[in-house]
C-alpha cells in the first residue's frame, strides 16, 4: 500500500513484519493441532499457553482468564450473550461471589428465555449494540445510556439506571469513532459496589493506552488483534476468574470448554507478538502519535473555517482525529480523498461500505447536517508530519471546492 496515505487505523492496521515472521513457522513448520497427543502437538500447546500468559500480563490478568477468539465482535457477543444466559439460569449475576454450579465443563444451559437488565451506552460499537438488541428480543431489558457532548458517560446516569435485576454493565473503554476515553475505573467501582458484572469493549483502546483490569474492577474485556498490527481474525475475551459463564461455542474442549474449535495457532502467536510489541512501544509510540494527532487537529481547526473537533481534546485516543466540516458532504469528501490516494473514513467501517449517519455523532448531539460532514482520520506511528501536511492541503482544496457549490454555504455567507 505504498502509494496511499493511510489514515484509517481504527478500521484496521498494518501487520508488522515481526508478527508475520513469528507466525510463519506455524504454517510452514509445526502445524500440529495443540489438542493432539504427540510431541509436536504438545509443543504447540505449550506455545499457545505461553502466548496466553504474556497477553494476560499486558492487562495484569492471569493466564487462565484469557480466552482466544476470532476477533473483537466475537468477544463482544460472547460477553453479553453468555452473561445473559447465566443470569437467566440462576437469577444471580455470574460473579465471583455467586458460586454457580449449574454449568458443567461444557456449559450446557438448556433454557431459552432470558430476563434481567443490562446497562450499556448509545455509542457502543455495533457488535455490542446489535447483540444488546438481540438480547432485548430474547427477554432482557436494556438501558442505553446517553453521553455528554464529548461522548463521556455520565456516572450519575449510570447509578440511576441500576435496578435490582441489573446483571451487566457494558461500556467501551474508548470510542472507535471520536476517540473518547470513558471513566472506566469509576464505572468499575460502581459495578463492584452494586454486585454487577462489568464488561468493557477495549478493541480500540487496548495496545494504545495502558489497561489494568484489577485497578478498574473489570470483569470482562474484549480485544482484537488487527487493531494493533496483528493478524485479522484474532482477539481475546478476558473473563475474571470466578465469573462463571456457560460455553459460547459448543464442541471440543478448547478454551476450557467455553469456546470450541481448533486453536488458530499461527493467529494466536501473531496476536501475542503484536500485543507484546504494542506494550513495549506504547509509551514512546503514543507520544509520537499524540504529536502527529495534535498537529493535524491544530492545522485543520486554524486553517479551515466552520470545522469542529468531535469528542474531547484531551480524553481522547492518541491516534484519533474526528472533525465535522459544515457545508460539506462527508461522503463526497471521502471519495475525493480517495482520488488523491488518502484513506480515511466517515463513520465506522463495519457497515460494508454503506454510508450511514453515525449513531455516535447523533448521540453527542450533532445535528444531522453537521454529522453528514464528518471525517475520521486515525493515524499511526508510520505517518509523517509531511504526509499530514499534505493531507491538510488537500482537505483545504477539496473543502473549498465543495463549499463553493453548496447552496447552504452560499446562503450562510450571504446572511453574515
Amino acid at each position: 500500500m505504498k502509494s496511499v496515505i493511510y489514515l484509517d487505523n481504527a478500521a484496521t492496521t498494518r501487520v508488522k513484519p515481526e508478527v508475520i515472521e513469528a507466525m510463519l513457522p506455524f504454517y510452514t513448520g509445526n502445524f500440529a493441532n495443540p489438542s493432539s497427543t504427540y510431541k509436536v502437538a504438545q509443543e504447540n500447546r505449550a506455545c499457545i499457553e505461553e502466548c496466553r500468559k504474556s497477553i494476560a500480563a499486558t492487562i495484569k490478568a492471569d493466564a487462565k482468564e484469557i480466552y482466544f477468539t476470532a476477533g473483537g465482535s466475537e468477544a463482544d457477543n460472547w460477553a453479553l450473550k453468555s452473561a445473559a444466559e447465566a443470569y437467566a439460569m440462576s437469577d444471580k449475576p455470574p460473579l465471583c461471589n455467586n458460586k454457580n454450579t449449574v454449568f458443567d465443563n461444557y456449559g450446557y444451559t438448556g433454557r431459552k428465555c432470558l430476563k434481567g437488565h443490562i446497562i450499556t451506552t448509545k455509542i457502543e460499537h455495533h457488535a455490542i449494540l446489535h447483540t444488546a438488541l438481540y438480547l432485548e428480543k430474547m427477554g432482557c431489558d436494556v438501558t442505553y445510556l446517553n453521553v455528554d457532548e464529548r461522548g463521556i458517560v455520565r456516572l450519575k446516569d449510570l447509578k440511576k439506571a441500576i435496578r435490582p435485576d441489573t446483571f451487566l454493565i457494558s461500556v467501551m473503554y474508548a470510542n472507535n469513532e471520536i476517540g473518547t476515553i470513558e471513566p472506566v475505573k469509576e464505572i468499575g467501582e460502581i459495578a463492584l459496589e452494586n454486585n454487577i458484572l462489568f464488561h468493557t469493549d477495549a478493541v480500540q483502546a487496548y495496545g494504545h493506552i495502558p489497561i489494568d483490569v484489577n485497578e478498574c474492577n473489570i470483569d470482562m474485556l474484549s480485544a482484537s488483534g488487527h487493531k494493533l498490527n496483528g493478524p485479522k481474525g484474532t482477539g481475546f475475551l478476558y473473563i475474571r476468574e470466578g465469573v462463571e459463564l456457560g460455553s459460547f461455542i459448543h464442541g471440543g474442549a478448547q478454551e476450557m470448554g467455553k469456546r470450541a474449535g481448533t486453536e488458530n495457532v499461527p493467529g494466536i502467536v501473531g496476536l501475542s507478538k503484536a500485543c507484546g510489541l504494542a506494550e513495549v512501544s506504547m509509551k514512546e509510540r503514543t507520544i509520537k502519535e499524540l504529536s502527529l494527532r495534535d498537529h493535524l487537529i491544530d492545522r485543520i481547526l486554524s486553517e479551515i473555517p466552520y470545522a469542529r473537533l468531535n469528542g474531547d481534546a484531551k480524553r481522547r485516543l492518541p491516534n484519533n482525529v474526528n472533525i465535522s466540516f459544515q457545508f460539506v458532504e462527508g461522503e463526497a469528501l471521502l471519495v475525493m480523498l480517495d482520488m488523491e490516494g488518502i484513506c480515511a473514513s466517515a463513520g465506522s467501517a463495519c457497515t460494508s461500505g454503506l454510508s450511514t449517519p453515525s449513531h455516535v455523532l447523533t448521540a453527542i448531539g450533532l445535528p444531522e447536517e453537521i454529522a453528514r460532514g464528518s471525517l475520521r482520520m486515525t493515524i499511526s506511528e508510520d505517518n509523517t508530519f509531511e504526509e499530514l501536511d499534505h493531507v491538510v492541503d488537500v482537505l483545504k482544496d477539496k473543502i473549498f471546492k465543495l463549499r463553493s457549490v453548496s447552496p447552504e454555504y452560499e446562503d450562510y455567507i450571504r446572511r453574515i
Partner: protein
Amino acid sequence: MKKKVAVGMSGGVDSSVAAFLLKEQGYDVIGVTMQIWQDEDRCTISENGGCCGLSAVEDAKRVADKIGIPHYVMNFKKEFKENVIDYFMDEYIHARTPNPCIACNRYVKWEALLNRAMEIGCDYIATGHYARVKKLDNGRYAICKSRTDRKDQTYALYNLTQEQLSRTLMPVGEYEKEEIRKIAADIGLSIANKPDSQEICFVPDNDYAKYIREQSGLSFPEGNFVDTSGNVLGRHKGIIHYTVGQRKGLGLSMGKPVFVLELRPETNEVVIGDNEDTFHMKLTADKINLMAIDKLEDEINVTAKIRYSHKGAPCKVRRTKDDEVECTFFEPVRAITPGQAVVFYNDDIVVGGATIKKFM
C-alpha cells in the same frame, strides 16, 4: 483530458454494461450505487430483481471490480424518502396512482446523485436506461426512444430538465436488449442472467397497500362499489387497493367482467362499469415539463402515452392554463388514470409530459 462520468449501478445487467461501454468509449468511469433503502441495518428487499439492496451493492462492486473501475455507495436515503416514498404514499392516499420511478429519476437520480457526482468532479452521470439523449437542431436536449422498442424506458424520463440532460449519457439505448446481455456474458459478468427488476423497488413483496398502511399508520376504511348511476354493488376493502381500469381483485361477481372507472375519495366510493366505460377521449394534466420544445402556445399534434405500458395514441395538446394542458385523442383511450404521467412524443423524441389530473 478524459471526461469523468458517474454511472448509477444497480447491480443489474443494463447499468453494468453501461459502465463497461463508457469505459470502452474512453471515459473516466466511476461506479456509484445509491443507498436508498430505509431499513436501517439490513435490507428486506428480495434477492432477485430487487434494486439497490445490500446484494445489489455486492453485485455492483463485483462488476466494478471486473470492469476495473472504482465503486462507491452513496447515501440518498433522506432524498429518496422525501421525494419518492412520501410522494408515493401521498398520491395513493389522495386516490391517485403514482409513478415513483418518475419521481426517483427527477429528484434522486438526476438531482441528488447528479449533484453529488458533480461535487466529486464528474462531468456526467450515466444510467443503464433504454433511452438516448439527443441534442436537437433547435439546440434543446431531448430523450429519444431506444432501439429496442420493446424495452423503451423513455416514459419515466420525460420530467428531466435541459440542465440535467446536458450532463447525461445513456449508452445502452443504442443496443437491443439481447445484445446487452451478450456483452455482459462476453465480458464475464455473472449477472448476465439476472432477471430484470419488475416491481416497485422499495415495496418488498409488492403488497403496496400493506406498505402504505404500515408506513402511514392510517387506516383506509371500506366503502361502496357503485355503478355510474350511484347504485351500490358491493363493498371495497379500502380505496388504496384500486386503480383505474383494474379488473382483478374486485371480489364482485356481476356475471360479466367489470372494471374500475373512477375513484372518489370524497365519498370513499369506487365506481365500477363495463370495459367500454373505461374509454375516454380527453384528459387534463398539470406539472408540465417541456423537453424538445421550449414553449407550448399553439395546439400541437403528438403521440401520447398515458402509462408506461401504453403503446401511445395520437392526440392534440393545447394549453388551457399557465400550468395545465388538455389532450384530445382521436380515438378513445382506455383507463386514463389520475396521477400517472402523460408523455408526448414526436416520432422517437419526447416532446414533453405532464401529470394527469382527470379524464373527461
